[in-house]
């Protein structure tokens, strides 16, 4: 009880901090600083209609690369932590209830559609809301669906691993190409900017987002796989 009391007092104090902040926040009325410049130059410079994407993939591309690395790291960390000791024999639980036939069929039907949807999201990241991360998550949800419908479903690690590694590797390579061919690391203008608003525009942004989507999708799937495995 004393702990709650202390916590209450502490959070009251914290509440005052936040209240103080709140009273001093003034809603912004216009774009200032970099955001104004992004709005003015972004489209022309990078050719991406979705400014958020332009920022995420190119202007602040290093952040995004870092973000991907974070996810990758988390996946690696989870894999390391949940690794099985050598010689560990998995206790097969026989009585796991198999899913119904309908569910399986439904899943088989839905999975490609969901994957396609995910791919659509990241391919169109520079035009519409969404991008690699969202698309990747959608792709992962397809895998998730597989897991749900079929508890004994096993991920094809070779393929997933390969996609994961290669997409990451290409991502970095494109970044380096940016130095060689264009203005700097992760510069998207290694490819022609193309027609503003079309799918094949905005230089390397769609490529990068695709790679990110693949990478994120496989990583999230990997995380899910690791988490659920062998319960």
């Amino acid at each position, binding site marked *: 009880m004393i702990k709650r009391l202390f916590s209450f007092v*502490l959070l009251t104090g914290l509440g005052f901090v936040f209240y103080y902040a709140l009273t001093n926040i003034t809603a912004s009325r216009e774009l200032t600083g970099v955001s104004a410049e992004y709005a003015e130059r972004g489209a022309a410079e990078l050719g991406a209609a979705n400014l958020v994407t332009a920022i995420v993939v190119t202007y602040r591309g290093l952040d995004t690369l870092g973000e991907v*690395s974070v996810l990758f790291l988390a996946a690696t960390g989870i894999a390391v932590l949940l690794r099985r000791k050598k010689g560990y024999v998995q206790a097969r639980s026989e009585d796991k209830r198999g899913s119904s036939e309908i569910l399986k069929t439904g899943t088989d039907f839905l999975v490609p559609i969901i994957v396609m949807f995910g791919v659509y999201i990241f391919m169109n990241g520079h035009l519409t809301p969404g991008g690699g991360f969202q698309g990747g998550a959608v792709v992962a949800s397809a895998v998730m669906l597989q897991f749900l419908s079929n508890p004994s479903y096993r991920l094809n690690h070779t393929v997933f691993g390969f996609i994961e590694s290669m997409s990451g590797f290409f991502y970095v390579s494109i970044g380096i190409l940016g*130095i060689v061919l264009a203005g700097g690391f992760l510069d998207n203008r290694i490819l022609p900017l193309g027609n503003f608003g079309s799918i094949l525009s905005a230089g390397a942004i769609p490529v990068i987002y695709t790679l990110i989507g693949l990478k994120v999708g496989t990583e999230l799937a990997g995380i899910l796989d690791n988490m659920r495995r062998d319960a």
Partner: protein
Amino acid sequence: MVNPIYIIAVLLGIGFILPLTEKKLSKLGPWVFYAGMIFTALVSYQWFRFFIVSGGETYHIFTAGVKPPLSINLQIGLFESVLLFVTNLTGLAGAVYMTKQISETGVRAMVLLLLLLLGLNGLILTRDIFNLFVFMEITAISTYSLIGMDVKSRSLSAGFKYMTAGGLASAFLLLGIIIVYSLTGTLNLDGMIRSAEGIKNVKLLSIGSMMILFSFIIEAKQFPANGWALDVYEGTKPGVAGLISGIGTTAVFFGFYKIMPLFTNETLKIVMWAGLITFFFSNLMGMKQENVKRMLGYSSVAQTGLVISVSAWSFMLGNDKLIFPMIVLPLLFNHFFTKTGLFWIAGLVKKDTTGLWGSITENKILHGIFIILILALSGFPPFPGFWGKWNLVLAMSLDSNFFYIWVLLAGSLFEAAYLLKWAGITLKKDKSKDILEYNSYKMLALQIVVLIFFAVTVYYFMTGNFDHTNGGLHFYLPFALGTGLLLLPFIPEKLKGMISMSVIAVYAFYFLPDQNGIGRFFNAMFLSGGFFLTFATLNRKDRSRSFYPLLMLMLGSLIALVNSDNILHFFFSWEIMTLSSYFLIHRGKGSAEESFRYVMFSLAGAFLMLLGFAYSFPNLNGQMSFGIFAVPGQFTSLSFILISIGFLVKSAALGLHLWIAGSYAKAEDDTSAFLSALLSKAGIFGFVMLLLAMGAPSAGKFDLAYILSWIGALTALIGTMMAIYEEDAKRLLAYSSMGQVGYIILGLAIMSGLGWTAALFQMVNHFLIKGILFLAIAGVIYRTGTSEMYKMGGLIKKMPWSFTAVMFGIIAISGVPPLTGFGAKWLMYEALIEKGWYLQTGMAFFASTVAFLYCFRLIHAIFLGQPKTEFRNVKEAPAWFLIPQYVFIMAIFFFSIFPRVLIDRISAAVEPFFGKSLTWDGNTVISSLGYWNATAVMTIVGVVFVVLAIGLFIKLPKVQKVKQFNIVFAAERPETPELTHFAYEFFRPYRRAMGWMVRPYATRFWRSVTESAYTVSDALRKIYTGNGQTYIFHILLVLVILFYISTGVK
């Protein structure tokens, strides 16, 4: 030049691709991994060289082909390149260190390490605040994973606590970033800092920057929001813990450092004090630690706090460009390498408890590295930490921030306490076996780190403010001698001793003639004393490699001390001297506790001295010459007092004498002679320098010299009083030494020509006598194997030469004419009465009569009375001991007959400062009060003595010689001679009457001080309950406190 962005690209690329090698290409994986690591190290080396050697200009890297602030930019300058280089090299070493763990865990462990390195490199390079956040997360997540990698309950729970803390930190960082962004409209650090000044909404800005600050305070593990960090250090494998503490902390710190300009001076002030508080409290709590890794954790946290504190302060001053390389970097490097190294050593030892580290000595190299790292961490010269702290203290003093220095030095003292205690344990062999877990990879990694550390040390030593042209030689000499002898392990010990002696002789031959002034006496004393006392050590039979190096280090540092031109030289030599003597004392049997006490007292004294320097330093802009003490300033008397305390500790003045008996007694027997005859003069030399430079200022109504005189007189009396009750010969001599040095202090305090003559005469006298007595006792102990006096007796028949030496020694020390001791006393009393200090005179006189008691006891209990059965066959002490004794005796006789030789020279040295005080009429020296003709006294006494002796010889040609045991008690003979040797508790009645004088008030006082420090330490660390939730509470509490301090609202 390879663009540093490639470091990031390559690390990441390899990281991404490595998992592919898991199955099929498992042979390839490690190669790729190490290639990536080496690549980063090479690239950073290239930049490092570019900046250090060619002095290149800071280089900016723009990503995305767009200029910042639109895009993220990286920056590599001098500091970045240095940090990158050490980080990547240490990272490589870390990979080597963890070879076994990596191969067990597989390729994913490599990925974790690569990405950790990536995060750290990014933290150092980036100039964008959100990017900083991302790299911080990368660092954090890879660290979490590395912590959890061994899947032990302890590391998991530690990692979990870390993650909750990290989660909070990143939440607040995001909040801060977005607030600052909303105000400045940019995420670029430089842009933010530039536009922060013009922001109107100051309150919001302060909240934003406070949130950022707070999150870094958590990440940098500041007190008290750092309970999780300690658990992490304790619970993690040492390899990872070393990386976290070393490169992890460094990179986080640098990230913090980059953001600091964003903060207002008020905020920076908070950071500065928060860091210092961390330093202080972490070290305080560390004292109670027995777990090696947790202890290192406390130290690590403390050091980080200090570095952050100093950085914040540097930005407050607007002097960061200068302070960073001068103070921050040395402190940081010192922490970085030592902590990494020590954690990694901990990984080679199976035991986690400090007390069980005794047999680390099995591996000499490892042990050597360990000791060096501990010393470096404790801030001893010549390691970078010393330069950092020295510069910090002086710079702080220029800022008049003396309270800071107090806290800083107190914290440093705590740190030294637990570190040296630990080091002390390993210096003693104990029964624990097989505690080492030898692993060549780990050793290799450790050696890499230590080698870099040596390079850094040499760099700072060479550039560390030393005036190399003027007298610089003296400061290299001790190290040259010490290391030279250490590196000659294969030659016999005797040869090493002879080499040492010849070096001293050659040095004295070329060096002494050019000397003049008071320093010359000290030089002559240290050199001649060193020479002859070293001769005695040739008797050693054991093969201990460290003895002669340490001895030479100590002698060398004494010489360096005397020849120091400025306070830096002085303090540097002082510390080396303290350190080398500590190790020498520590070599003795059962000396762990005593030597620890010695070094703690000495260090505390040294720190106070440093404080004293600091108080005086601002008086003269930027110069470190002794002259600064001559310039009167606001704090003259305080400075004088503080510096005096440092010297008083070394002189074992009353109240600060606790260490003396134990350390003299427990040191090896031949070493004790060095300690008493030579080392005790270091404090005296300090007083000479201090009083010459400063005169005797007065504090308020009190004349400080007058107070000093009382300290001297009381020390003389109580030291002597304590000596008479000792059963142990060496303890007796130790207290005697204390008393005698008390006289010297008293003499110096008189501040007159006569007084100084007396003091210096007494000093030479004491040097000779204690040389004789300690060596004689060493010889006796060498033969009998005991230092308890009552266990001996009647040894005059077996050791007549030693007896004679002791007899002359005690006659000289007690001040009985005709030997030199009387000269010292005569000069002293004349000076005291001339000065009008009658009560002190009376006290000094009392002390000198009491001295008879222990003199008699010493010679009686050992040499006279009844011999013991077990010592019936002991032989005379070895000639190695006797020869120096008789050399000293000859010197005493020479000075007894011709004191003018000595007094004239002393007067000449003292005259420039105090004027002429003595006149001579032939051999009669005349003071304002009285006169003394030593030659006549000697002649008269000698003639009468010889005549009477001859008369007795003629009258009694045939004396019946009887055995010692031929005594009668009322016509009966007692059976065992043991019973008839009256020696134990010899002065019992005296104690009954006068014992109140030696009640251990000082001991009780210091014990209660120590105990309360430990109690506070223990109570304080209880806040780290181990409960992750408590830690969350602490973290949020810090936030709230920070907020209320920084805004100062309501």
